[in-house]
């Protein structure tokens, strides 16, 4: 028991992943070299994926690793490199406004944390295994029964985004 929390495998994993996510996040904000930033970003995404898996959402966790840690991070690195002037990101550090922003963000987070603490969350009345079957089956059922239309819409959006991205990024002739 540390601070009223039982020390189990779960909690240990949670704390380690949290540490990874938060420290990587802070590093994304503070590092200036491109590659360092990209690495830190990968850390954040991986940590989040770990949390997902910890919560039994293995499929989403895998998707997270594939899309975020894989695709998006690489994309970002490319973009950073394409637009880079010199070695570092080359932008001035925090100014006076950053301080106020920090204050505002801190207040916001504090409020939310306070609310999270103050709320009495409903707890499952019957303690059953959360997921009696593999999550991927459930997701598939949900996605192709309940959420068929949104799912199709998302594909549309993705297509539109693809076309849009091409059109926008294309060189003007």
């Amino acid at each position, binding site marked *: 028991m540390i601070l009223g929390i039982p020390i189990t495998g779960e909690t240990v994993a949670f704390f380690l992943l949290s540490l990874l996510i*938060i420290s990587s996040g802070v590093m994304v904000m503070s590092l200036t070299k491109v590659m360092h930033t990209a690495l830190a970003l990968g850390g954040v995404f991986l940590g989040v994926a770990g*949390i997902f898996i910890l919560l039994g959402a293995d499929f*989403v966790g895998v998707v997270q690793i594939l899309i975020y840690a894989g695709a998006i991070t690489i994309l970002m690195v490319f973009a950073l490199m394409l637009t880079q002037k010199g070695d570092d990101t080359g932008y001035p550090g925090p100014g006076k406004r950053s301080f106020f922003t920090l204050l505002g*963000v801190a207040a916001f987070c504090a409020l939310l944390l306070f609310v999270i603490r103050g709320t009495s969350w409903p707890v*499952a009345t019957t303690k059953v295994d*959360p997921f009696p079957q593999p999550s991927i089956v459930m997701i598939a059922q949900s996605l192709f029964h309940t959420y068929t239309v949104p799912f199709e819409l998302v594909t549309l959006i993705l297509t539109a985004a693809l076309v849009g991205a091409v059109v926008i990024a294309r060189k003007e002739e």
Partner: protein
Amino acid sequence: MALQPFLALGVILFGIGLYGALTKRNLIIVLISIEMMLNASNINLIAFSHFAVTPNANGQVFALFNIAIAAAEVAVGLAILLAFFRLRNSADVRDVNTMKW
């Protein structure tokens, strides 16, 4: 494990992302920060899905949707960024001010 630690983690990650989105001068870092905020919300969704009164997969499905939308957003965002960079030869947020007054 309880719900609250996960929510707290989400809030903190969201705060970091928000701070980055509001202060960073580099447009790409801003985009990255936004991705982090989306991740924070995904943590929430998955956590609620896991700790719901009757656990179900809805939260996971929403998280998947979120990821899909985020991917689209990154694609379009980066495209805009590239077009902008070509136009102004800069990726500074402060140069994106054509909508002023």
